[in-house]
């Protein structure tokens, strides 16, 4: 695990370091989507580089992407003084959409690059190399030092733009967006657009909820970014998930958890009762009206409490269910064992003549289909139970929900 995830984790820390800082500025400037927009402009630059005959991972392609991103950054900076006439967010959106469309048009002339651009936007943080991480760290350290030295005007341009003359504001905005374009172009090559967006916005936004003051938010954001990175990487390993999307999901889960905590803190007893009654009424109504639709809440309850399911089956149906579940468990064990054997044969760890190996492969395929058939039997039984739960669970649940809502609303009226 460490061998494969060490460098992605270090890369995540480097990305957190610079992006939380820029994220705080971006949130203050209210230009949340500028990152996606500049990344798309950089991708357009890559597409043009490919059309010009440069390989997608070459230095030339990187500088094309950077030049395009700088042009996009300057455009965004130029708009800010005219915010009254033309909203900066609107320009950011237009730049995004037009760059994406131009990218498609350009790549239509050089189609071999289309997949690489897609991969670039999706990101491949799992396969990041120590050299790439080192280069990023050096570049971001240099940008960090420049921003530290120029912190006063840069901070004023982001947090108190009204205190700056227009000419100066334009100059510092241009510097800010140019350095931001450099960061986005470099980060997207390693982590992809979605992940870079998360590093930029999620920790900074959460830190804004938790603490006040720029330095405190920066430190909190760094900790949240590091924790989300670690959580995403561990989840990716433990649950066998693609790494980039797993880290993005970890950022999403962190945000959702924070939102839930905030919501729970604001909930009163009465609003909790209203919410619970509403949920019960909707769940009951759906079960009553559409018993065969997916009911994930009931599935989860039945998994935790099997009698909730078996109580709605006849004796013979229960026997069929037990038999089928035994068959599935047995098949799963056998399939796991035989698959390991098949892998060993494939990799030449175990000798087996080709005819026998083919028979093993076919047996595995057949057994797998049979197991899937057993799963269909369980599904059928679940459908039968649902028809009965429709009235015995759905109707009471709907009644309780409506009664709860009515009682709460009546109390309010009184």
């Amino acid at each position, binding site marked *: *695990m460490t*061998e*494969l*995830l060490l460098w992605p984790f270090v890369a995540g820390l480097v990305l957190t370091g610079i992006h939380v800082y820029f994220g705080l500025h971006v949130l203050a400037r209210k230009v949340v989507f500028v990152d996606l927009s500049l990344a798309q402009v950089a991708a357009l630059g890559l597409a043009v580089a490919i059309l010009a005959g440069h390989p*997608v*991972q070459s230095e030339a392609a990187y500088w094309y992407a950077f030049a395009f991103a700088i042009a996009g950054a300057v455009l965004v900076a130029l708009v800010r003084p005219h915010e009254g006439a033309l909203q900066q967010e609107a320009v950011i959106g237009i730049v995004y959409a037009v760059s994406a469309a131009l990218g498609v048009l350009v790549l239509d002339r050089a*189609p*071999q690059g*289309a*997949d*690489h651009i897609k*991969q670039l936007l*999706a990101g*491949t943080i*799992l*396969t*990041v*190399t120590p050299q790439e991480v080192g280069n990023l760290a050096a570049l971001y350290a240099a940008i960090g030092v420049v921003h530290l030295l120029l912190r006063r005007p840069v901070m004023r341009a982001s947090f108190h733009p009204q205190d700056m003359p227009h000419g100066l504001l334009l100059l510092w905005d241009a510097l800010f967006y140019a350095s931001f374009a450099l960061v986005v172009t470099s980060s997207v090559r390693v982590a992809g657009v979605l992940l870079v967006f998360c590093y930029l916005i999620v920790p900074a936004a959460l830190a804004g909820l938790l603490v006040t003051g720029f330095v405190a938010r920066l430190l909190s954001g760094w900790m949240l970014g590091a924790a989300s990175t670690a959580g995403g*990487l561990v989840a*990716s*390993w433990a649950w*066998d*998930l*693609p*790494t*980039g999307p*797993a880290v993005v999901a970890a950022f999403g889960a962190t945000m959702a958890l924070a939102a839930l905590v905030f919501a729970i803190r604001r909930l009163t007893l009465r609003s909790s009762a209203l919410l619970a009654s509403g949920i019960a009424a909707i769940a009951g109504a759906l079960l009553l009206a559409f018993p065969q639709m997916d009911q994930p809440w009931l599935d989860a309850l039945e998994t935790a409490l099997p009698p909730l399911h078996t109580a709605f089956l006849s004796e013979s149906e229960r026997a069929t269910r037990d038999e089928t579940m035994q068959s599935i468990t047995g098949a799963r064990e056998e399939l796991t064992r035989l698959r390991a054997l098949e*892998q060993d044969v*494939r*990799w*030449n*760890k175990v000798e087996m003549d080709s005819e026998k190996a083919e028979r093993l492969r*076919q047996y595995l*395929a*057949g057994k*797998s*289909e049979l*197991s*899937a*058939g057993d*799963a*269909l039997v369980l599904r059928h039984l679940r459908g039968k139970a649902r028809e009965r739960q429709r009235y015995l669970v759905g109707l009471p649940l709907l009644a309780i929900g409506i009664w709860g809502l009515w009682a709460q609303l009546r109390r309010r009226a009184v």
Partner: protein
Amino acid sequence: MLAALVVAASPSAEAEQPRLLVITTSPDLKSLVEAVGGDRVEVESLGRPEQDPHSIEPKPAQLVRVKQAAMLVKVGLDHEPWLARLPAVSASVVDASTAVPLLQTETPRLRAERRVHSHAYGNTHYWLDPKNAWPVTTSILAALAALSPADKTTFEANRQAFLTQLEARLAAWETTLAPYRGARIVVIHDSWSYFAERFGLKIVAAAEPNPGVPPSPGELAALLGRLRDSDVRVLVADPHSDPSLVRQIAGKSGVKAVTLLPSGRDYIALFEENVQRLSQALKSGQ
């Protein structure tokens, strides 16, 4: 006298006859239709060799040509999901997969496991076995002969000449790859099963269990562990493969990475190139 006049007149009448417009979904099929149709057909491919065949977006001019076409030839199975979005065509549609012996047809409709192959009706990359040119050109010949019965003999002769040439080249390719028969290889995407089957190579794993979705750390670690401990020396990538994934696997396991072309404008040249690239990689990996 009259019969002689008819015979004398027929060549010029044939010469004036417009050529049949045939649209194919891939350049490989275009090459095969041209081989059978010869001068009697004008063939255009909707896809290019460099494009991902699963996600082609036809342009307006191509849609016009599809409407004008007498025949549309497709790879079939579920290889071209975008084809269903085309407006209804009046041309006769040839599914080139019809007579092909498919691999991985047990690909489940019901499989309970998480990992399902992306193709529901068997592996669709059947043109990568040169021997499948026989059934594919049979389907093409039948459809062309139905459209232009007068040219049936010409089509048959064209097909025979092409297959004779292909057979000779196939023997040469088999000779080139004969020293490596039984060699185990790893692929990035599971598109080389037919090719491997023809030339006696054994594909032991695909790095992307679901094409286009990067492997998880666990899958990558398992693959690298197996590779380090095995006699596998070559990793076959496609031009669309993620270069950083290819670099990572090759760098950490010491296997030789080689990019083979899954599609080409000239059917025979496609195999010439792939056989040359693969034999060099297998040779240097020994």
